[in-house]
């Protein structure tokens, strides 16, 4: 799992690449979100999942944890460019209704 952080319009964008799976990828996402959330108040985070190959239940759990952490601190966490298989996984457990999801980065940034 490779994670690159950049900033635009007071929003921290995390570009994820690889697998968000138990043991490695899930921990990397947790650390990146916690770091980004601690760096701004309130934290506004956009997670770009365009290059995510797969996500398992541990990875889904980390997305939920990130959403809760950021929301509880008065911020917003949104998802960008979900691959179809990631969309399916979030759909199965009805989490697709929890997250705000965008297909266009500028549109996503304007929504914060």
């Amino acid at each position, binding site marked *: 799992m490779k994670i690159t952080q950049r900033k635009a319009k007071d929003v921290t964008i995390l570009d994820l690449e690889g697998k968000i799976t138990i*043991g490695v990828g899930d921990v990397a996402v947790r650390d990146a979100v916690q770091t980004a959330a601690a760096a701004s108040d309130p934290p506004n985070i956009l997670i770009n999942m365009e290059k995510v190959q797969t996500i398992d239940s541990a990875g889904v759990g980390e997305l939920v944890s990130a959403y809760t952490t950021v929301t509880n601190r008065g911020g917003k966490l949104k998802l960008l460019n979900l691959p179809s298989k990631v969309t*399916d996984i979030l759909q199965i457990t009805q989490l697709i209704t929890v997250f705000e999801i965008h297909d266009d980065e500028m549109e996503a940034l304007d929504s914060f």
Partner: protein
Amino acid sequence: MSQSEIEPRAFLTVHSQFTSIELVQAVVEDLLVQVSMGEECRHWIGLALREAMANAIKHGNGIGDKHVEVEVCCDDEEVVLRIRDQGGGFDPDSVDDPLAPENLLKTCGRGIFYMRRLMDEVDFRFAEGGTEVMLRKRIVPDEGTEEVASSS
């Protein structure tokens, strides 16, 4: 052909560590290509396998000196995976419904639900010495696209 008659193609014994999941998934992926399982189906089987392995390691054995056994059986009709740990067992029906509103934002408890949604059949067997999870999926060739998220 019933699943009990399917010829085993591989039998792996791996250390109870999360890194073992990658190795097992690579072997199973190769076998599924050999039986012409489509890419879409291979992805979902791989994910179900990952969930079963993760449960065996995290909740069954714990990370450490124990082992996880994986048996792969397949013919031209279906694939059957059996994942065995050396843990104390559990009641799969006691796992909370991840779709219940009070559980929707929980950070864990979705693995078995995903397995059941992604595979045609999932069965748990408990015996002294460990738990066995059986995952079964019919072969869907490359032309087939499986809908995994449409039904309740």
